[in-house]
């Protein structure tokens, strides 16, 4: 029987691939968005920053920040799901991915539902790929701040998948 791959090697491969993917999107860096990973599950994290405010009187996060955060979370999740099998099977290495960045899905439409005011503190988001075909994908995203069950925004988006050369 084949010995399981050493855990450090598995983590290194997955973390390197995720970092490469996220770092390739300048706008995610501009907003300060980071991703935490548990196995294949991703959580997007938006650390609070003064520049993210839209209404200084309340104060509240800008609606555009919330929409951006959700769209970044959706695209990274969808890309991650698209690349996962290739990375795990060894058909794609994080190194070759860094040299030749994969094409990202393109947003067709994106609908944001603003449920509560975005408070001036960190926000989290998790996206779920509800359907992913060869050409189109549908993704739902939920965002919260203090309580996972109290969403402050959610969104659904449709995406055009990039053509992959694996058949």
């Amino acid at each position, binding site marked *: 029987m084949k010995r399981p791959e050493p855990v450090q090697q598995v983590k290194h491969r997955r973390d390197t691939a995720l970092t490469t993917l996220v770092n*390739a*999107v*300048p*706008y995610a*860096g*501009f*907003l300060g968005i980071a991703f935490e990973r548990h196995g294949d599950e991703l959580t997007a994290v938006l650390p609070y920053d*003064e*520049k*993210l*405010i*839209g*209404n*200084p009187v309340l104060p*509240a*996060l*800008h*609606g*555009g*920040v919330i*929409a*951006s*955060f*959700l*769209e*970044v979370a959706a*695209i990274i999740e969808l890309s991650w799901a698209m690349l996962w099998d290739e990375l795990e099977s060894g058909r794609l290495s994080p190194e070759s991915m860094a040299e030749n*960045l994969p*094409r*990202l899905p*393109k*947003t*067709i*439409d*994106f*609908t*944001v*539902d*603003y449920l509560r*005011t975005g408070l001036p503190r960190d926000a989290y988001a998790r996206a779920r790929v509800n359907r992913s075909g060869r050409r189109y994908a549908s993704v739902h995203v939920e965002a919260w701040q203090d309580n996972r069950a109290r969403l402050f925004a959610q969104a659904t988006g449709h995406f055009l998948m990039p053509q992959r050369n694996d058949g």
Partner: protein
Amino acid sequence: MSKPDTTDFINALPFARALGMQLEQIGAGEAQISMLWDARFIGDPATGVIHGGAVSALMDTCGGAAVMSYPGALTTATIDLRIDYMRAATPGQRITARAQCYHVTRRVAFVRATAHDEDSENPVATATGAFTFDRKEGSA
């Protein structure tokens, strides 16, 4: 629409300032806001195209500005916003959004918006949204 005091409006919104937005026209439930292309806003590194989220932020700000310019408006917040991305905005070009409150009830403003780059004939994106509408006391 009148020529507004453009800097105050944007300066009051830290994120609009961070994206370098410029208010060009506002009044009677309509607004026009633009932003320059910036490498920090890129969403697709292969093409240099700006991230959809930055276009959303522009549309949302423009929609909110249109609502605030409607007679009697006191405050507003976005209830929902749907953006349709018709084509990639050309890298390097300014993006301009125009928003209009096409219907206002006692509590809700319905907004439509379009965004285009320097090719004003072909929109980059269109949006529809519902915004909360709080009136000043005494206004109808």
